[in-house]
């Protein structure tokens, strides 16, 4: 698991051998490669950037170049045991609809995102009066692809409103897993395991 981002390492640990997995926004396929190599998983990816797709396919992975905002519709219902959306939700045109699609194509979903209510973000906005540029959100407002910033509490409200069940939540700061106490202040990233 070495080298995998903390949220991906948790996902890789939790996916059972033999599962069918779709990684939405899979980048160059780090998680897919890990899953295929270690766990006899049928892992597929969807990625917008052709250069990243090229790198994934060159590693022997199954990656389709496509836009998660519209191309998830190409997959049949419950085609996968797990649909994964890691640190991509905040870039979606409609995160709520993407969540629906995720739980349509996957029996369960893993969703991770940067928590906009982390204390550094709050401090940057409160004291600096500017859009936060932090370790978790390194790009300025004009160049970031994050168009729907979200907090842990916002996300909990959304899934509650949708009647989506939470099977597990993990929080991360400084690249490590942290406890749930005060997570909406302390967590830079959150990972949810969801089912409907």
């Amino acid at each position, binding site marked *: 698991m070495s080298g995998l981002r903390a949220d991906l390492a948790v996902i890789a640990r939790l996916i059972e051998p033999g599962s069918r997995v779709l990684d939405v926004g899979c980048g160059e396929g780090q998680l897919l490669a890990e899953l295929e190599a270690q766990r006899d998983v049928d892992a597929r990816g969807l990625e917008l950037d*052709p250069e990243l797709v090229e790198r994934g396919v*060159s590693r022997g992975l*199954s990656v389709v*170049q*496509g836009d998660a905002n519209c191309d998830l519709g190409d997959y*049949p219902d419950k085609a996968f045991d797990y649909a994964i959306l890691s640190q991509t939700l905040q870039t979606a045109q409609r995160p709520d609809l993407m969540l629906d699609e995720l739980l349509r194509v996957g029996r369960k979903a893993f969703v991770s995102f940067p928590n906009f209510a982390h204390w550094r973000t709050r401090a940057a906005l409160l004291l600096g009066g500017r859009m936060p540029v932090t370790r978790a959100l390194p790009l300025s407002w004009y160049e970031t692809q994050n168009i729907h910033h979200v907090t842990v509490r916002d996300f909990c409200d959304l899934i509650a409103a949708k009647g989506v069940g939470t099977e597990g939540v993990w929080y991360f700061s400084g690249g490590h897993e942290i406890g749930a106490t005060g997570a909406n202040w302390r967590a830079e990233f959150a990972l949810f395991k969801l089912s409907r």
Partner: protein
Amino acid sequence: MTTAIASQSLTLTHDLPLDCGQSLAAARIAFETYGELNADKSNAVLVCHALTGDQYVASNHPITGKPGWWERMVGPGRPIDTGRFHVICANVIGSCMGSTGPSSIAPDGERYALRFPVITVRDMARAQIALIDALGIERLHTVVGGSMGGMQVLSLAANFPERAARVLAIATTARHSAQNIAFHEVGRQAIMADPNWRGGSYYGHAAPDAGLAVARMAAHITYLSEAGLTEKFGRRLQDRAEKSFGFDADFQVESYLRYQGSGFTQRFDANSYLYITRAMDYFDLAEEVSSGGEGSGKLADAFAGHAMGKGARFFLISFDSDWLYPTAESRHVVHALNAVGAPVSFVELSAPHGHDSFLLDVPALDRVVRGFLR
């Protein structure tokens, strides 16, 4: 046109059934192979050629003397590495490089000409299967092709799902569009309007080279991109400082097309051009599985044999400058494969050369092909 001698050829001992209802008796399939077949026959890669291609994928063309048409992709150390793979490339039936086609001698001792049955892309795939049957290859490591080669690849995967472990279709489509058919019809009309065509029975007489050259010129434009043509020729004049105020090839692009057209007639049979373009126009993978009328089939049904990971791994590649078989056509196939849960990869590569990009210098293509065949 001169008839080439293929270095290897197979004469089928059974009749080859055709979609038109007829069958071909004692069909001959000319082919080339490169690299050694391993003991368990698991390293065979079948390369399917395009409309005017041939079996000389990685060796010199016997008529033109030019290098193989895909030498940058197939050879020792190349993405399709002949040090690792046993590469097979067969001339499609209907063509004119040694496989049975309209210029071949029919069982009655006369040339077929237009008595040759109209064939389809699926018939071509049947002939490919007959060849690998004869070679004793149960399952191909990979079947790969671009353009019409890609159509054969898709047809083979749909109709013979257990015969290939990897399916790589480049710059292609699952059905010919109205625009595709329209361009082909221009080419066919050019051939048939040539008085030398004689209703197809021109063998032993002067061939309809003028018509065939025009057909090639028109088609060649569709293989390039506007940007590519502009970059290569612009409005530059050919060997002259001034316009001639006549109908000579004033412009470089005219001279180039004329050269392409006349060169083509040296190596290709006009009737073969009619038959193969017809086969491409008839190609509609979804229609093949439909029970009812035109267009009622679902493309996903064509790939039912690959449902839920039981079949091959697929990879489709398109090029952003290809307006003949644009990216949307590849996506259509990807969509169908996703619908049956087949493992599929897809990428649209950026290249300036239009449809012909699959034959030209596109390093990203080399990388992904190499990766997919790992």
